[in-house]
């Protein structure tokens, strides 16, 4: 069991690093999917079956596909991304590492979180989660509909193609061109 945990952990960390490191965006997406799958594995290890399912469906099935879709749509599936300067990269890595080590250093004080008195193996099952969701968490559940509605509106509003072709220039030209710097085409 422990070995499975460490295996999944190693896979998730490595694939996460790959997400960051891959030159080609498609490779990144695939690494991320691997990472998510390993996280799903953790969920299963934790006996969070409902979560594992939803996770695979939502993340791997929907979100990542969406990512791929956009990459294809925008024709980004080439490793054309100019890399950042070395300095920025070092700074980024340093910042990340510093952050991590500070957190880990904090953990050295020890975590004393008492487990539940009575361990309940059914916690992560669909039934238990569903009960909780539709009793205690009813309001959030309802309210999140507002969230989705806005997200939908947003997607439609922003993603829709212009009624008039872009070449016709905007109705009102961007007026405050106070900086003359041109955007490279």
């Amino acid at each position, binding site marked *: 069991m422990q070995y499975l945990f460490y295996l999944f*952990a190693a896979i998730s960390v490595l694939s996460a690093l790959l997400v960051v490191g891959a030159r080609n965006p498609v490779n990144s997406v695939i690494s991320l999917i691997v990472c998510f799958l390993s996280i799903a594995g953790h969920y299963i*290890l*934790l006996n969070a079956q409902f979560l594992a399912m939803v996770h695979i469906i939502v993340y791997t099935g929907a979100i990542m596909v969406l990512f791929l879709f956009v990459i294809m749509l925008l024709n980004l599936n080439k490793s054309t*991304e100019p890399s950042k300067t070395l300095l920025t990269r070092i700074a980024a890595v340093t910042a990340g590492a510093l*952050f991590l080590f500070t957190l880990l250093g904090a953990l050295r004080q020890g*975590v004393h979180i008492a487990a*539940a008195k009575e361990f309940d193996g059914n916690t992560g099952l669909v039934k238990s989660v569903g009960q909780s969701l539709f009793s205690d968490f009813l309001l959030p559940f309802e309210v999140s509909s507002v969230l989705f509605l806005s997200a939908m509106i947003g997607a439609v509003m922003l*993603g829709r193609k212009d009624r008039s072709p872009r070449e016709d220039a905007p109705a009102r030209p961007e007026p405050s061109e106070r900086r003359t710097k041109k*955007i490279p085409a």
Partner: protein
Amino acid sequence: MEGMMTAIRVIPLEHYIVLSFILFSIGMAGALFRRNTIIILMCLELMFNSVNLLLAAFSAHHSDPGGQVFVFFIMLVAAAEVTVGLAILVMMKRNVDSVDINQLNRLKW
């Protein structure tokens, strides 16, 4: 399945926490590291997932389904956010013709 139930009892909670922190940090560093905005978005997803993992672990630890419900909500929100985010990205790509984060600097100072 009975055997698997004990994962949280075998693996110390700290390990979950550490794993989660590592993933979180990788996501964070990745957001700084890359210029491609789509990859930055993916890094953000990674950060969310590290939180999800942590919540799931706590949830199991406490035997409280609430944490897992929360993860569910995070997924909801993440989905909504990604939708909006990608829509904005597409719009931006149309306007600016780039997804390079360094090209996004018309607004400054």
